[in-house]
């Protein structure tokens, strides 16, 4: 191992630090303070933190080298399905660093943050226009948080109208794991809906489950549209009507909104409430796993329950509004992930109305093109026009050659591409879920398809190569069982 690849703690040399801490700055005449007496002994820290002590160059090398061990959109194609790994424009990063955005406090006088409040207000307006849902809250911190917040809104609504017994939420079997998990956190019971052979909601099953829930049992349907197979729920309006007639609300998981932007609006096809993922659809970066933002959009009916604070406009002045008796309250501190909002706002303004529409169009174009190219090498789970993504199944390869989706993924790493999402959605065996996004060029898609084709060929001729892959990465396949059986979750002084 190169010495610079050790853990920070192993590089630590007592007495070093990468930053000289500032000396205390005292007001005039305060030099005489007896600093030892400022804290009672029992409140003073006695134990050492043992934080690593390294010089600045060692620190720079440490993190620079670590960064180089990541695959990232900035270095290669990263078609992780359901994650919308699109280009993150650098202008977003430049503007959010402005002190006029970064150095603001949530409790400043509203007169001092009119630009920021105005940005929040406008961004809500844009998201409302894009979704067709008139009211937006930018409060939630990520997609799953948006789901939870939205489910709370639904629950609060039913509580308010005396129907708090509605506790059933219907969720298609193709849904993302956060959907049922969020339901549980909100005190809802989930019932799974079967997908039909077209990969869409089975309307008969839906009817059955609605019935089974009893007259006042359905709280909501949580539907993802386009769904996680990359398919548009053609009968969404009919589905929404069924739910509505049962007194339920239609919740849409908006993780896949990229496909629809400027083309079709959830609010127009029967959705009552949805979440957005700003870190996916709106190009704010994924940051190795966040921060994100998971705004929610609602109909007029549900608006009173939105979390606080709201940002409202009085004449020309923007202000926070907290006094909202029907609100669910807060699901986090402060207004939301403002830094993420700035980026999303910047992105929308860069694209504008025509650009936003071209996003949707080209996301779908790229996905279909790649589907056709890869479809030559492997079965597409639902071989017809897809939206922003599509799912392949390696079932045959697994059966005939013992090569599984995970082996293909690992081998793609050796070709220098990040693999697609694998084993999701759960209803497709040996699934590879591929979302190229609109920001990739045709030549990248061609190159990926070529590499993929070669791997499939190799899988048939020399499957062992795939089982041993990857070989070009900093480490090879990791022993995940050992990680659980002999857990090492932190460094400890040896």
């Amino acid at each position: 191992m190169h010495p610079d690849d050790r853990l920070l703690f192993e590089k630590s040399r007592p007495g070093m630090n990468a930053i000289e801490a500032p000396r205390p700055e005292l007001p005039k005449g305060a030099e005489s303070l007896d600093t030892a007496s400022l804290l009672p002994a029992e409140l003073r820290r006695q134990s050492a933190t043992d934080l690593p002590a390294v010089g600045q160059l060692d620190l720079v090398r440490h993190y620079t080298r670590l960064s180089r061990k990541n695959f990232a959109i900035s270095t290669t194609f990263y078609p992780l399905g359901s994650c919308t790994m699109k280009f993150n424009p650098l202008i977003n990063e430049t503007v959010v660093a402005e002190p006029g955005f970064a150095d603001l406090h949530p409790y400043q006088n509203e007169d001092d943050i009119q630009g920021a409040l105005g940005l929040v207000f406008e961004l809500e307006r844009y998201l409302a226009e894009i979704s067709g849902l008139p009211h937006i809250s930018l409060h939630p911190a990520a997609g799953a948080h948006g789901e939870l917040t939205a489910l709370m809104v639904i629950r609060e609504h039913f509580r308010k109208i005396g129907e708090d017994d509605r506790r059933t939420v219907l969720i298609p079997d193709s849904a993302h794991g956060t959907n049922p998990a969020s339901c549980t956190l909100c005190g809802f019971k989930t019932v799974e809906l079967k997908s039909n052979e077209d990969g869409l909601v089975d309307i008969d099953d839906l009817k059955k489950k609605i019935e089974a829930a009893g007259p006042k049992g359905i709280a909501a349907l949580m539907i993802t549209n386009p769904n996680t197979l990359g398919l548009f729920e053609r009968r969404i309006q009919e589905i929404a009507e069924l739910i509505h007639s049962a007194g339920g609300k239609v919740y849409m998981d908006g993780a896949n909104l990229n496909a629809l932007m400027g083309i079709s609006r959830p609010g127009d096809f029967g959705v009552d409430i949805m979440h957005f993922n700003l870190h996916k659809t709106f190009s704010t970066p994924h940051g190795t796993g966040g921060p994100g933002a998971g705004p929610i959009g609602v109909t007029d009916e549900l608006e009173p329950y939105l979390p606080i604070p709201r940002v409202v406009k009085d004449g020309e002045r923007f202000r926070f509004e907290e006094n909202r008796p029907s609100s669910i309250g807060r699901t986090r501190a402060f207004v939301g992930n403002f830094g993420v909002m700035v980026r999303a706002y910047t992105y929308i303004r860069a694209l504008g109305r025509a650009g936003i529409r071209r996003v949707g169009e080209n996301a779908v174009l790229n996905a279909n093109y790649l589907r056709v190219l890869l479809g030559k090498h492997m079965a597409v789970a639902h071989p017809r026009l897809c939206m922003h993504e599509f799912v392949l199944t390696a079932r045959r390869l697994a059966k005939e050659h013992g090569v599984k989706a995970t082996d293909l993924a690992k081998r793609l790493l050796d070709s220098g591409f990040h693999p697609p999402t694998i084993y999701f959605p759960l209803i497709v065996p040996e699934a590879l879920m591929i979302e190229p996004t609109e920001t990739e060029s045709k030549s990248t898609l061609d190159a990926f398809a070529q590499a993929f084709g070669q791997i499939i060929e190799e899988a048939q001729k020399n499957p062992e190569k795939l089982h041993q892959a990857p070989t070009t990465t900093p480490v090879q396949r990791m022993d995940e069982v050992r990680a659980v059986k002999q857990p090492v979750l932190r460094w400890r002084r040896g």
Partner: protein
Amino acid sequence: MPYIQNTENEQREMLRAIGVESIKDLFEPLPASTRLGRDLDIPVGMDEASLRRHMIELAKKNRPLGDGPSFLGAGRTRHYVPVIVDHLAGRSEFVTAYTPYQPEASQGSLQVFFEFQTMIAQITGMEIANSSVYDGASALAEAALMALSLQKVDRIVVSKASHPEDRDTLRTYLRNLDVELVEVPLKEGRTDLDATRKALEVGASALCFQSPNFLGILEDGAALTEIAHEAKALSIVSVHPLSLGVVAPPGDYDADIVVGDGQPLGCPPYLGGPAFGIFATREKFIRRLPGRIVGQTVDGQGRQGYVLTFQTREQHIRRDKATSNICTNNALMALRGAIYLAAMGERGFAAVAESCLVQAHAAARAITQVEGCSLLYDGQPFFCELAVQLPKKAKEVNRHLAKKGIQGGYDLGRFDPALDHAMLLAVTEVTSGDDVDRLVAALREL
């Protein structure tokens, strides 16, 4: 549009390959009735130069805290962010990667989180930590949920001295779960120990308190934890992470879960987000922990490496039985926290905390020399925030300070209407002596 890569020629080629005539045909799966037949009503796009100008104009409509002396705290405190944090966390391989599902392609992030977990454990004095949740408030809510699932008593007790937005969040999370939330009153600016004992008498899954609390006062964490444990409740402590450079960490007094907001560790205040939520606990609770955890293991060649582990707790595997619904967390901000802690190191971390402590106390001394100004809870220990009694309404005082170019403190009347003549002032290592002098001079003019 430079963000979209297809030229018209290429679009045509691709459509041909797909076997359709036009882009419109691709949307055949959408019934006509679901289509938007018009342009979106959002502004037209902007070239980069115009956009940048526009954004700078928007930014200029805000007054950054750094424009003058600032004493706002109450959940966001200003600290010096070393430039390496921006430079290193800005590496695009961190910024534009996602959750490390493929460990071989993500050893960078994974090692970062492993080290982050270690450093959070080190400063809190706890055994383990996860790799971040959203923020301090949701961390508290997750901690309560974890306590509920461990202790199985449908009752949570929380100190009224916890941040009001944290308490709100807790209330919202618990409201739908048939859990009783009980608030314990204060005494002299601290959680009332007797009232706490009493509130726990009928049992609870956890006692939640914050130290330093919302009024800036350091709680007697040892006593509170003991009270909780006597009632078989877990002790959940919300911390200001930087305070742990000088203040005894909850691990030292046997707390069960430590949460907090990571903003003071290398994150700009950003109007309240994003920063990251800290979550540390005992190793034996590992299977009930929310969020992502990175573990060390080896590859086939015996090389040391890192993976996401104990994933069976998580929603993508456990779905409605998961410990939490969290998926995307606040990784990039946690990375900032990690770089910050590593940059300060053992010595620097203690030194910054000491600076906050000393400067806040020096400021307290200077402020209380002003006629009509006194510490609201004189004699109580505090870290970097002080609750000050004022000769006039805090609202009015803040208006006066604003005129002098000073960003005043948090109006405690918002916390408790009875305290409308008091404000909470934050003084950290970036508050200069001159800042305090200006504040004092302005206060004298009241």
